[in-house]
């Protein structure tokens, strides 16, 4: 490298390397040229054909979404055709200007702009996005006259989803909304991409989501020749779409309406089931919301209002609220004791008014106790001491096994919300079925993982770690009413195939048969009938011309630690949750239900009167005048929360 000192030889070296580089460049260009010859000469015919094929475009034709009707044919969800004004953002150079110009022609509100912005953020950019929906004929004509001024803007006729009864049964029906990236992923995972070409809406919650693929239908196609501008010139072939299948529900819309009204302004849930099929007659979670708000894309204001409300209208309490069952747990405890031989029905205990375990004393509510208490009396009067002792005798393992068989603390797999790949519903909470094993998994610290004998005692009266959804309770009471034959709770009775009108029945087979002794079942049922005749439910069912079995319950609200202090609201939110389970007529039940009223006080006070209204309509056709009244003089019984004294 010594030569570098010499500028002359330095230049020589450079020129040599520049020459080398020039040859390398030439060779590389020859390589490119060879590739071009391969593509453009040798393979030209193949690619020319492919380019020709590209001129034929498949335009998807979106099918009509299936209609949803209740058991009597009342329409709950349908479609209607309307004109929308849509913008394809990728074809518009200045969106703001375009929208402003459109606003001079057609009424465009700030909320329309906001929604448009929101949809645009969600959408893939080549889509056309509605700026206004439901144009009047006059507006359509107005725009048509000025259409030339607005490239990339179009009026389209589209089918819209409509829920004609508004808020009614919204937690069951769910709603549809525009397809987001996450929905798209979900569709892809299920290999339904092709069928969703052109589809813009998808079921987001409830029945709309669970039966998405039934309701959607099969997308049709039109083969069109497109000109150099990409516009369709003529149709070559048309494969019409197949409409989605129609759903007929087990739900009774009128019953649903009466039940929702019975709640008045109170928060809560009610699930009413036909015990002999598992078909859900009413599924209420209050407050509700109007699913129509979601169809065109909900406005940010509405969304904020729904989401920020302290009453949480978007939460489906029937499926996702897990509450301690309180004393409604007692009939199941009694049945378990009989089945497993821990108690004979006539076996009585002497109730001193408390139960002592180690140095803990568990108080009965009635001062001095209920005296001599057998199983019948324990249910009718809701005696706590009886169940403290029983729980202690049974032990947590036996209780947990029996309640697990009944479906408590398990997903019911109701046909609502998202299904996972195994076909299970992901939309409901499991709740908590307490057991030593559950505790081991729930807690991390070893000293918390141990199950203490004292914890079993409060489980016996439905408090402690117990937490079940109203749906699980309804399923359990329906199974009891049906003498141990358990059905999966479901909302769709049958699916009507849109191609041939064939009806596909959902759930003709029982889920499982629990082989309980009829004598044992009868003892519990009789006691539950007497609850409403001479026990805690007497006042609510006074004068009923049918025999209804029931059990009141009260769930403690103890989660106020850490909750925000809201003066005025605090007092109400400190009240206990009221519960009631029931079925009627007692001898041949056609309806079983579980009611929960959040902060409703004790069960007889606010939950039982709602059950009465439901039964009165369902069995007698009686239409109530207003919401169920609270009975402030209701007999309290023992079903109010656990009183625990420590010595």
């Amino acid at each position, binding site marked *: 490298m010594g030569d570098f000192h010499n500028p002359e030889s330095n230049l020589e070296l450079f020129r040599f390397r520049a020459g080398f*580089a020039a040859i390398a*460049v030439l060779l590389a260009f020859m390589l490119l040229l060879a590739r071009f010859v391969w*593509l*453009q*000469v040798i393979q030209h015919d193949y690619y020319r054909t492919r*380019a020709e094929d590209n001129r034929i475009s498949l335009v998807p034709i979106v099918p009509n979404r299936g209609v949803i009707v209740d058991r009597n044919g009342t329409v709950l969800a349908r479609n209607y055709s309307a004109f929308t004004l849509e913008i394809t953002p990728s074809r518009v150079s200045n969106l703001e200007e375009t929208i402003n110009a459109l606003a001079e022609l057609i009424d465009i509100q700030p909320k329309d702009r906001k929604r448009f912005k929101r949809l645009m953020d969600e959408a893939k950019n080549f889509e056309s996005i509605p700026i206004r929906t439901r144009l009047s004929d006059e507006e359509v004509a107005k725009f048509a006259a000025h259409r030339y001024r607005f490239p990339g803007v179009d009026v389209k006729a589209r089918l819209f989803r409509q829920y004609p009864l508004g808020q009614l049964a919204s937690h069951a029906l769910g709603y549809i909304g525009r397809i987001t990236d996450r929905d798209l992923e979900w569709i892809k995972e299920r290999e339904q991409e092709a069928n969703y070409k052109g589809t813009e809406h998808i079921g987001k919650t409830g029945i709309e989501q669970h039966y998405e693929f039934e309701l959607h239908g099969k997308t049709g196609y039109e083969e069109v020749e497109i000109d150099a501008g*990409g516009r369709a010139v003529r149709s070559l072939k048309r494969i019409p779409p197949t409409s989605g299948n129609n759903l007929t529900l087990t739900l009774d819309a009128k019953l649903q309406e009466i039940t929702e009204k019975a709640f008045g302004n109170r928060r809560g849930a009610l699930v009413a089931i036909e015990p002999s099929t598992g078909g859900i007659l009413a599924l209420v979670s209050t407050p509700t919301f109007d699913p129509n708000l979601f169809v065109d894309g909900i406005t940010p204001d509405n969304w904020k209002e729904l989401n920020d409300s302290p009453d949480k209208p978007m939460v489906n309490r029937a499926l996702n609220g897990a509450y301690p069952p309180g004393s409604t747990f007692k009939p199941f405890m009694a049945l378990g004791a009989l089945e497993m031989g821990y108690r004979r029905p006539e076996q009585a205990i002497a109730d001193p008014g408390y139960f002592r375990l180690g140095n803990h004393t568990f108080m009965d509510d009635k001062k001095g106790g209920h005296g001599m208490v057998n199983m019948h009396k324990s249910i009718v009067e809701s005696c706590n001491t009886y169940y403290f002792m029983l729980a202690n005798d049974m032990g947590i393992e036996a209780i947990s096994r029996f309640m697990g068989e009944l479906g408590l603390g398990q997903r019911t797999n109701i046909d609502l919300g998202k299904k996972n790949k195994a076909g299970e519903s992901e939309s409901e909470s499991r709740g908590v079925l307490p057991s030593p094993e559950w505790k081991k998994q729930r807690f991390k610290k070893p000293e918390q993982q141990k199950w203490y004998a004292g914890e079993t005692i409060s489980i016996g009266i439905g408090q402690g770690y117990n937490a079940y959804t109203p749906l699980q309770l309804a399923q359990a009471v329906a199974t009891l009413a049906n003498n141990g034959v358990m059905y999966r709770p479901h909302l769709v009775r049958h699916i009507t195939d849109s191609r041939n009108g064939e009806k596909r029945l959902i759930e003709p087979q029982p889920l499982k048969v629990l082989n309980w002794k009829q004598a044992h079942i009868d003892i519990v049922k009789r006691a539950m009938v007497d609850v409403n005749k001479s026990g805690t439910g007497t006042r609510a069912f006074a004068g009923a011309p049918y025999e209804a079995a029931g059990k009141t319950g009260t769930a403690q609200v103890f989660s106020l630690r850490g909750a925000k202090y809201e003066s005025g609201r605090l007092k109400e939110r400190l009240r206990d949750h009221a519960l009631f389970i029931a079925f009627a007529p007692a001898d041949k039940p056609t309806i079983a239900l579980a009611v929960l009223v959040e902060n409703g006080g004790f069960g007889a006070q606010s939950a039982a009167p709602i059950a009465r209204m439901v039964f009165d309509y369902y069995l007698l056709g009686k239409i109530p005048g207003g919401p169920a009244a609270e009975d402030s003089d209701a007999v309290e019984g023992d079903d109010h929360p656990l009183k625990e004294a420590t010595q």
Partner: protein
Amino acid sequence: MSDWRHRIRYWLHQAVAPIDWPLLAIAVAILTLGVMTINSATFFNNSNRAPDQIANFAVAFVLMWLVARTSPQNLLRFAPPLYLLGVVLLVLVFLFGIRINGSTRWLSLGITRIQPSEIMKIAMPLMLAWYFQKHEAALGLRQYAVAAVLLAVPFALIAKQPDLGTALLVGAAGFYVIFFAGLSWYIIGGLIAAGAAAAPFLWHLLHDYQKQRILTLIDPTSDPLGSGYHIIQASIAIGAGGVVGKGYLNGTQTHLEFIPERHTDFIFAVFSEEWGLLGNLVLLTLYLLLIGRGLMIASNAATLSTRLLAGAISLSFFTYVFVNMGMVSGILPVVGVPLPFFSYGGTALVTLFFCIGVLMSIQNHRMLVKK
């Protein structure tokens, strides 16, 4: 009167003197084809970008003219600070950059954002040319090693973003300087051998999407709706063009919007569909002339640094062309490299004409400064 005439003639002479006409003619010829193609690719979509590109050219031309009037020595004086600024900005990007589409390339300046790797496209060859000039008297292994480090740091920072396309362009520009400075053939051979041996290891360093692009190249049909789609549609466009092409404004692949990024990175597919193999030949010839003119200027340059700089710039043009055309015609993986003087894009055009200005400056001053 005649005095006036003289003055105007003098000014005109002063104005056009720095311009190297062959170079400008070739660049403008390519640009003209580019603008025509941009027009074809975008006019039907309410957003014709051809006028914008002409405006971009106006800006780029003024810059080119200013650079051409400046002496290479003055340009090279800016090399170290420019290089340093570039590295500092790249480090800032690494630390505080904005993440867009999974890569961190931009630096927010409040009102606007900049992409510092663009600076490196010019700063890298300038810096290395300046460095070799400084050590011209005693070029040894040590100097090559330092040059290698100067090259490796920005390269690594850009590759990490990740922006493999730009890293490749910056790296290549730097390597050309070292190559022209006389790096031993043995070392070049050794590097190539080492690179080949390390390929499996490098594969693991790539991001998933980068691996996917390479795999897609081998079999585009494996991902027909993703990056394979670009390759398939571009190949169809080129292939369908045939020998003479479909004619200007008649490319169906373009006008039916089958070609993605048709006025930027994939514009060659548009051109190729409408002008065919003959058009491609013309375009390749123009690029060959451009590179040839550049190398000629390099060979006549007065100093080592200007030689290296001109050589590296010329070969950089080649890299752009080869990587872009290779990508569009499906023999190289998809990396974001525009076709020089052809693709739509203001920043790229300004950078490219800056380089042309540097070449002109070197050409103008070939006799004036002799050591």
